[in-house]
C-alpha cells in the first residue's frame, strides 16, 4: 500500500481518515485507502462492516463525520452527489419505470445538457456494448432481471464518469446468472476503461471481478490488496478466514536455535529467524498459523518432520480429482485438508491417525 501512495499520478480517488457516526455507533472508523485509475476495487465484508456506508459516502448520499474524500485530487467531501461525476448501479437497479430503456440511459446526458440526438446516439452505442440494442424502446418492467442490470450498468457508464459504483451488483440475480454477469460486468467496465468500486459480501464474486479487494470489518478497513496478496499474506485471522478456506491453528511462540517455533498440542511450525514473518511475531507470546487446505501434505503419522501435525481422520471424502479430509487435532480443533495424493490417502480410514506436513513457505503466521 505504501507503493501505491507514492504513485499519485494514477490516483482516481482517495479516502483520508473517513469516519461516520450514527449517534455513538461508528459505522465507519477512520477508513483510508486509494483507488487507482482504471482499477476494479471491491469492498468486501459481512453486513454491518461499513462497506455500504463507504460506498454511500463516496456517492455523496451521506456526509462523513470526519475525514476527506478526494476525487482526481479535488476535495469532494462537501460536494452534492449530482456534482461528483460518479456513476452508480443500485442494488435493485433503480431504473426509472416511466421511461424507456433509451430514456433511462439518456438521463445522465440530459442532466448534462446534451441534445436529444446526441443522447440517443450515445445511448445506442452504450446499448450495443451491453448487448441490448434491440430493447431501446422497452420499459424496464418489460425486461428480465439480467437485462435490467445491464441497462443500469449502461446508465452508470454512458457519461464516462470518473468512478463507477456498484452496490451489491449480483444480489438481485439468481445464482445461475451471477457467474455469467460477473464476467460480463468485468469485461464491459474494462472495455470502456472505467474505474470501479463495487460492494459485496460474496468473497467469490470479489475474487472473480476485482483487481484489488478491500476487506471491511466493524467499520474498519481490515486489509486491502490484490486477491493473490490477501490469500497468500492475510494480516489478520479475519482476512485469512474470509478469503478462501483456511485452517487457523493457535499456538505459543518460542525461539529454538536459528529458528522461531510456533507450537500447539500435537503440531508445530518452524520459521527461519531471518524470515520477515518471524520478525513480525518475534516479540509475541502467542501466534496463529494459517494453513490452506491444499498446502498440507498427508504423511504417515509420526514422521518427525520439522513442520508437522498429527490428528485423527474424522471424515474422508472422495471428490474425483481430490480427497478431502477432516482431521481432528489433539485439542479438538478441526483441520481441513485437500489432497490429490490419491495413492497415500486411499489406504487411510476414518479413525486412523494421520500426519500432516508442510514447509515454511506454505504457512502464514499472524501474531496474536
Amino acid at each position: 500500500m505504501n507503493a501505491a501512495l507514492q504513485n499519485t499520478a494514477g490516483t482516481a480517488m482517495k479516502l483520508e481518515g473517513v469516519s461516520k457516526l450514527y449517534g455513538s455507533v461508528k459505522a465507519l472508523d477512520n477508513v483510508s485507502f486509494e483507488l487507482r485509475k482504471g482499477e476494479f476495487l471491491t469492498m468486501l465484508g459481512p453486513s454491518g462492516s461499513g462497506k455500504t456506508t463507504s460506498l454511500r459516502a463516496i456517492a455523496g448520499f451521506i456526509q462523513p463525520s470526519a475525514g476527506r474524500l478526494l476525487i482526481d485530487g479535488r476535495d469532494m467531501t462537501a460536494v452534492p452527489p449530482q456534482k461528483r461525476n460518479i456513476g452508480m448501479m443500485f442494488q435493485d437497479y433503480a431504473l426509472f419505470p416511466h421511461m424507456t430503456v433509451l430514456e433511462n440511459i439518456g438521463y445522465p446526458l440530459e442532466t448534462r445538457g446534451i441534445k436529444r440526438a446526441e443522447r440517443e446516439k450515445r445511448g445506442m452505442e452504450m446499448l450495443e456494448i451491453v448487448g441490448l440494442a434491440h430493447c431501446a424502446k422497452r420499459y424496464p418492467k418489460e425486461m428480465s432481471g439480467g437485462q435490467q442490470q445491464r441497462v443500469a450498468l449502461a446508465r452508470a457508464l454512458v457519461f464516462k464518469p470518473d468512478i463507477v459504483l456498484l452496490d451489491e451488483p449480483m444480489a438481485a440475480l439468481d445464482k445461475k446468472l451471477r457467474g455469467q454477469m460477473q464476467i460480463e460486468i468485468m469485461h464491459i467496465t474494462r472495455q470502456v476503461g472505467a474505474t470501479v468500486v463495487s460492494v459485496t459480501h460474496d468473497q467469490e464474486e470479489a475474487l472473480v471481478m476485482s483487481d484489488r479487494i478491500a476487506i471491511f470489518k466493524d467499520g474498519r478497513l481490515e486489509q486491502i490488496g490484490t486477491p493473490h496478496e490477501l490469500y497468500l499474506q492475510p494480516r489478520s485471522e479475519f482476512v485469512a478466514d474470509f478469503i478462501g478456506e483456511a485452517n487457523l491453528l493457535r499456538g505459543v511462540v518460542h525461539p529454538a536455535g536459528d529458528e522461531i517455533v510456533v507450537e500447539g498440542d500435537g503440531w508445530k511450525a518452524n520459521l527461519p529467524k531471518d524470515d520477515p514473518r518471524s520478525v513480525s511475531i518475534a516479540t509475541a507470546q502467542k501466534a496463529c498459523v494459517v494453513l490452506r487446505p491444499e498446502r498440507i501434505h498427508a504423511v504417515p503419522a509420526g514422521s518427525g518432520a520439522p513442520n508437522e501435525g498429527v490428528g485423527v481422520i474424522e471424515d474422508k471424502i472422495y471428490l474425483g480429482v481430490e480427497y478431502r479430509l477432516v482431521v481432528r487435532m489433539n485439542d479438538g480443533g478441526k483441520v481441513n485438508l485437500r489432497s490429490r495424493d490419491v495413492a497415500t490417502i486411499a489406504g487411510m480410514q476414518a479413525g486412523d491417525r494421520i500426519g500432516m506436513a508442510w514447509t515454511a513457505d506454505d504457512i502464514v503466521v499472524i501474531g496474536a
Partner: protein
Amino acid sequence: MTVSTNDRRESVTAGPLSRVSPAFWLIAPSVLFLALFFLFPLLKLVAISLPGGSMEYYDQIFTTPVFLRVIGETFRVSLIVTAVTVAIAYPYAYAMAHGSRATLLVLTVALLIPFWVSLLLRSFSWIVLLQNTGLINDFLIAAGLIDRPVRLIRTPLGVIIGMVHILLPYAVLPLYTVMKKIDLRLMEASSICGASWLRGFARIYFPMSLPGVAASAILAFTLALGFYITPALLGSPRDMMIAQMIAGQFNEQLNFGLGAALAVVLMVLTAMAFGLFGAARTALQMRGRRKGEI
C-alpha cells in the same frame, strides 16, 4: 377415503343453484340494496323530470340565464377548489409518505380528526373563524395589519376556503397511497445521474405521482360539484351552487319537475367531467407510449 370425500363434494355442488358462482350470493344483498334504494329512485327522478315525455324543464334550464349562470359558477368554483385542494394536498401527502413516523402520525391525526366531525359543524366553525368579528379578522386587526375587517364570509373566497378544508382529506389520501409506493432511491439515482433535486422532482418524482394527482383531482372535483351546505353557509346568494338551487326547487318552490331536471343535469355534467378526465388520462398515456417509441 379421498375418493369418497370428492364424491360427496360433487354431489353437494351439483344442485340446480350450483351454476351460480358462490361470489354472487355474497354480493347479492348489496346489488339488491342498490337497485331498491339507488337505481329505482334515480329512474324515478329522471321520470319526474320528463312529465309525459316533455323536455320542457330542460328547455327552461338551458334558456334561463340564472340557471346557466349557477351551473357555470358551480363549475368555476369547483375547478378553483380542486386546484387549490390538490396544490395543498400534494406537499401534505409528500410529507406523510416520506417523513418520519412521528410526522406521519401527527399529519394523519390532523387530517382525520376534522374528518370525523360532521360537515355541518365544520362549515359553522368556519363562520366563527371568517366573520367580521371572527378569529381571523380579530387577529389581523390586533396585529395591526389591517384597520377594519376584511370581508371573508359571504364571498366566493369564504366558500373556497371552507370547501378546500372539507375536501383536503379526500385529496390527500389517494396522493399518499401513490406516493408511498414511489421508491426514494429513484431520486438518489436521479441525483447521481447529475440532476438537481428540482430536476429530479420534475422528471422522475412528479410524473410517477401523476396517477395520484389525477385520482385526487377527480375525487375533489366531483365532490365539489355537489356541495350544498358549505356554500349555503359561507357564500352569498350570488355564489349559489347548483345543489342549493336543486334544494330550493324541491323545498321552497315545490317544483319537483324542475328540481329533478336540474339534478339530472348535474349528474350528466359530472359524468361528462369524469369522461373528460378519463379521456385526458388515456391521451396522456398514449403520448407517453408514442414518445417512448422514438
